[in-house]
């Protein structure tokens, strides 16, 4: 009886629903966005897989097979950028997860001046990467910069050349990136923590759980969607990063802070369009190979929670 009652409308309804669905939610709504997206994003991406194998002047191209890729992997300056890209992406995104969560937990608690603290943490997000880069170039100046003045005042020794020492340059830029981006990570975490129902905290408090236990057993697992958002967004941003690196070190000193995105720009500037596009294809492969499986994995963990 029960199955019959539900079965009958089920056979009749889909057709009626389908008709009104088709009329009210027309597929042509996809066209305006889809057209722009296909022409300016999909088509160039597909073309890059051809032009990466050519010597190219924008007007005509000669097919050269894997020459561009061989060159990319043979030159130390170019292959170094691959390693730098990975280091930069992992360091920035890991730091943003840890610091973002820490700041968000502090800024979600009932502390004084909460609104003010939230705003101040977000301010760096509002400044352009170029503005931030040029500011820190001055702050980190090896001799007159504020950071090293303070360093000398405290330790008595001269501070390092943050952006001019080949061993430090990449990590310094990564640190600036974290400074600039941690506000966004914090905002995402604040939203994630705000979405946790209050009952959990109340129940925990009744059971006598301390602040640390509440963090371990409630906030950490239940803000996981925020964590996966922060990891993915900052990793994608970090692996593709260009603006900040270009405005602080331009990939230097030498090639010590060159990433794939800055190599793409340098080759483009020099007129090596085929090589530049090969760089794009490599960046495509690197980002996809890391981010796609990671997002699948994070998603599966998210649904199992």
């Amino acid at each position, binding site marked *: 009886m029960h199955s019959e009652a539900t079965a009958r409308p089920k056979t009749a309804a889909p057709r009626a629903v389908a008709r009104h*669905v088709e009329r009210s*939610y*027309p*597929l042509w*709504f*996809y066209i*305006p*966005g*889809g057209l*722009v*997206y296909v*022409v*300016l*994003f999909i088509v*160039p*991406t597909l073309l*890059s897989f051809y*032009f990466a194998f050519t010597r190219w002047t*924008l007007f005509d191209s000669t097919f050269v097979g894997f020459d561009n890729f061989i060159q990319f992997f043979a030159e130390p300056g170019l292959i170094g950028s691959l390693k730098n890209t990975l280091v930069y992406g992992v360091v920035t995104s890991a730091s943003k997860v840890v610091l973002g969560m820490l700041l968000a937990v502090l*800024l979600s*608690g009932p502390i*004084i*001046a*909460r609104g003010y*603290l939230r*705003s101040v943490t*977000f301010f760096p*997000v*509002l*400044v*352009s*990467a*170029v*503005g931030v880069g*040029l*500011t820190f170039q*001055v702050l980190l*100046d090896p001799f007159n*910069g*504020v950071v090293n003045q303070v360093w000398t005042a405290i330790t008595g020794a001269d501070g390092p050349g943050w952006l001019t020492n080949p061993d430090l340059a990449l990590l310094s830029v990564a640190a600036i990136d974290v400074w600039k981006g941690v506000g966004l990570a914090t905002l*995402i975490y604040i939203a*994630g923590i705000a979405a946790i129902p209050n009952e959990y905290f109340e129940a925990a408090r009744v059971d006598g759980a301390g*602040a640390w236990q509440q963090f371990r057993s409630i906030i950490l697992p239940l803000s996981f969607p925020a964590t996966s958002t922060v990891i993915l967004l900052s990793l*994608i941003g970090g*692996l*593709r990063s*260009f*603006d900040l690196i*270009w405005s602080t070190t331009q990939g230097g000193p030498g090639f010590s802070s060159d990433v794939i*995105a800055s190599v793409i*720009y340098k080759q*483009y500037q020099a007129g090596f369009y085929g090589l*530049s*596009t090969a760089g*794009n*294809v490599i*960046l*495509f492969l690197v*980002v*996809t190979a890391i981010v796609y499986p990671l997002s699948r994995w994070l998603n599966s963990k998210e649904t199992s929670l």
Partner: protein
Amino acid sequence: MRKSARWGIGIGGILFTTVFFLVPFAFIFTMSAKTGPEAARLQFSWPTEFVLWENIVAVFQARNYMLIVAFINSFTLTVFSVALMVVFGAMVAYVLDRRKSRLNGLINAAILAGLIVPPAVVPTIWVMQSLGIFKTLFGLILIEVAFGLSFTILVMRAFIATIPREIDEAAIVDGAGPLRLFFRVILPLLKPTIVTIVVVQSIFVFNDFQNPLYFLPGDANATVQLTLFNFQSQFVTSYNLLFTNILVITIPMLVMYLIFQRQIVSGMTAGAVKG
């Protein structure tokens, strides 16, 4: 939490944020109020002679009022690209959520690709050149739309899913066609996510350096971020003007954030994170 802890953590937080977040801003501000020679010492000190206004005037006058042209370009770029992003993105997100069609899988894959895949620069220039929109503001607007669409759709779709279908039904019964239903009923309901998208994407587009550099080169149609770079080479020692320029081009985004601050978190909660 005990009262002492509220104060302790709060004061600790104020100290921490002051050192790490406020000092660089104070530095930008004091530098832009200094005279050229004083700024060249790169010190963090209050200016002995407060010349902020003179510096602002100088920055705007530099290179034949280039900054004014750049501001017009940047505002046009931001307003039009974000508006198109919102409308086009909402249309896609809406139909994608409401209608199960064979296209859904394809479109979801395209959205994911748009988030992950780095744009192929030179082939994009090649396509734009063939269409005659390379080095045009219009072309750059479309570029920003194409690159920002995925994120917009993702955030909006999660929010649209929370709008009850009964609202659609009611409008349909009242005789609303698809365009009326979307623009008069659905779009206004999306306001919380629209605010979030507008703020986040405006910051992104207005502060974008890479895309204007590639797709809209040339001084005549510089955006504000490119003027910053021109300044650096032109005023090699004029740090006061460089920092005044940073300050001036940051103010629009700062004002927007202060206005919409509260709505951003609620929009994020509704869309990006819950999704």
